[in-house]
């Protein structure tokens, strides 16, 4: 069992860190203040080939895989959780097509998504179903050569940014009554709904999308009719959970670094607070959370790269890393004392950004159900 990352992955980490610090950091404050989408950063990431990390080389991606992706998200998240979320959702938009698309669909969409000429996302959640996706009510009716979709999807990351959206809709009844479609925002009947204002992840778009008799060509059915749950759940439970874990890792890194820096500078009773045990315990707990989250996240990613079944391992990594991110963010704010509450220090941003990671790509409770299911059969 070799716990060392390959030289190529170390080089990848270094390169992404330089990009994150050089290109993303200068834009963070503006994103915080305006909640504006940083289109130029997306262009730049596309140029650096970040978007196609899960797309095979034959379709224009780099095919570097899941562990490389996890490291990328960790490095971006360390500087901006909003950008890490944007990056991970781009990947999710490519994954459903790469994993379940037919040749024609892959040839048509993947190269464009890899180059960033099209931006992708996935839309499952509705007012009536998130944790329980079977509660969704968007319908898709076959009419001639097309499916006609009707419904509204809410809380969709990049709902207003993406050109190419994997949408889950009802084509029948029961668990096999769902299908997944590749929907382009230019299709007739596709509209943008409300733009959400979140208390964190500023600069990462979250919005409602509306389908009113939205006409989707038959060729854009992903897999077969009835595969909808399979397609979306596979994407969310592997690529989505990993994405959240990556964002969480980034936040934990940032919290630890900010806390160490502040603790070393801040003087109390003639010495820096980093020399007081109470602060040292906060720091060591964050360090523990970082390493444990990393091990779980890297292992699950490695497993996916080996094409091993990894949905529970992803659940575990997601659950741990995102809860840890929230824990560490609170600790970081506390270490900063009064300064932690002030907007000019970054830790308040980590505190606000981290919370949503728990609810996204399956809440912590969902992850625990998944883990229980496996434990109850494996440990009999």
């Amino acid at each position, binding site marked *: 069992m070799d716990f060392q990352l390959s030289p190529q992955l170390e080089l990848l980490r270094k390169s992404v860190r330089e990009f994150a610090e050089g290109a993303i950091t200068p834009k963070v404050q503006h994103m915080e203040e305006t909640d504006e989408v940083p289109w130029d950063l997306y262009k730049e990431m596309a140029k650096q080939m970040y978007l196609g990390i899960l797309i095979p080389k034959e379709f224009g991606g780099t095919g570097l895989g899941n562990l490389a992706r996890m490291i990328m998200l960790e490095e971006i998240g360390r500087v901006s959780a909003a950008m890490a979320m944007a990056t991970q959702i781009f990947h999710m938009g490519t994954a459903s097509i790469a994993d379940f698309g037919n040749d024609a669909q892959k040839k048509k969409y993947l190269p464009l998504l890899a180059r960033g000429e099209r931006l992708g996302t996935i839309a499952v959640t509705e007012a009536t179903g998130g944790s329980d996706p079977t509660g969704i009510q968007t319908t898709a009716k076959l009419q001639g050569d097309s499916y006609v979709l009707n419904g509204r999807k809410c809380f969709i990351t990049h709902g207003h940014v993406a050109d190419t959206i994997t949408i889950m809709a009802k084509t029948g009844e029961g668990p096999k009554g769902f299908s997944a479609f590749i929907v382009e925002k230019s299709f007739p009947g596709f509209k943008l709904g409300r733009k959400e204002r979140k208390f964190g992840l500023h600069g990462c778009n979250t919005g409602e999308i509306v389908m009113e008799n939205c006409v989707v060509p038959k060729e854009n059915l992903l897999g077969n009719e009835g595969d909808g749950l399979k397609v979306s759940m596979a994407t969310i439970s592997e690529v989505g959970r990993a994405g959240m874990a990556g964002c969480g890792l980034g936040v934990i890194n940032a919290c630890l670094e900010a806390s160490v820096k502040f603790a070393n500078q801040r003087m109390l009773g003639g010495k820096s607070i980093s020399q007081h045990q109470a602060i040292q315990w906060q720091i060591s707990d964050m360090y523990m959370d970082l390493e444990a989250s990393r091990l779980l996240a890297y292992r699950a990613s490695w497993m996916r790269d080996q094409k091993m079944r990894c949905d529970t391992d992803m659940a575990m990594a997601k659950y741990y890393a995102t809860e840890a991110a929230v824990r560490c963010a609170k600790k970081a704010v506390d270490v900063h004392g009064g300064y932690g509450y002030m907007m*000019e220090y970054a830790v308040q941003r980590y505190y606000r950004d981290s919370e949503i990671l728990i609810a996204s790509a399956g809440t912590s409770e969902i992850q625990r159900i998944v883990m229980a299911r496996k434990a109850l059969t494996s440990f009999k």
Partner: protein
Amino acid sequence: MPPIKLDETSEWKGILVFVEQEEGCIAEVSFELLTAARELSHKRGSVQVGAVVVGHEIKGLAQDLLAYGADRVFLADHPSLQKYLALPYTRLICDLVLREKPEIFLLPATSLGADLAARLAARLKTGLSAHCTQLDINGRGELTQVVPAFGGKVMATILCPAHRPQMATIRPGVFRRGERGEGQGTVEGLPVEIEPGDLKQRVLEVHWEKKPAQTIEEADVVVAGGAGVGNPEDWKWVQELANALHGAVGGTRPPLDEGWISEEQMIGQSGKTVRPKLYIGVGISGVIQHVVGIQDAKVIIAINNDPNAAIFQSADLGAVADFRKIVPLLIEELGKKSNAG
């Protein structure tokens, strides 16, 4: 170039100084090096100090060089040498060094001085230390050269035991120009023949205007103002001092709150960290939140009329004075310097 053999080092005597000049104006650092040379000369039993100048229409410079410490002045004067060019300067000075055999050869650690020193040392196969901050003669009669490494975190003493001349470049300001003397000594014109190899380079233009820095993080010089500046009219002194030094303007939180600077210019724990060669704090009290942002600056000068201001603990040089009196005088003197070239 055959290497100098160990047992021949004793043939080498005296100290040579390279005089940097532009358009007939001797750089201040050249006078400082003459002072260094004189001090070393005393320690070596009053050996001769030579000064070499390369350029055009430089005969008039000899008198000042003799007055400030040279015993002998060597002039290589030719129209083609008016502007510094590495190849002919290296060739001519190398010939002089091999003829005169100085034991010690000092050059300024400036852009051109260091360039010349490096080529010369390579050609002469001898040791060269860079931007020395101290020079001395040890018990064995060797030149000890103290230089910074790792950004100044480490200081090393360099020796050149088996090669001659012992070469060192010295930063401006390490020594000071000495007292003007009577100026007795000899002046020798060196024969100059331009060779084809000298003409591989041509200087087309020289400009005196230095571009101002883009951001405070990139600037070599940062002038920062604090609450002590008091009002926006007086803030102009901070700006003008920065201009005079071709530097950038920074500040603490109160100027930001007042709108005299932008977020990009705020220096401190929750703002920018700067590492300029020179930081001047004007009317800054020096609370830790600001000081953490400047502690890696090479030189910190603080001007504050409160003698107890915390900033003085973190400064290299503190001036207890009203900046409204000091800064205008500084700007005036700096203006004189650049006009004189």
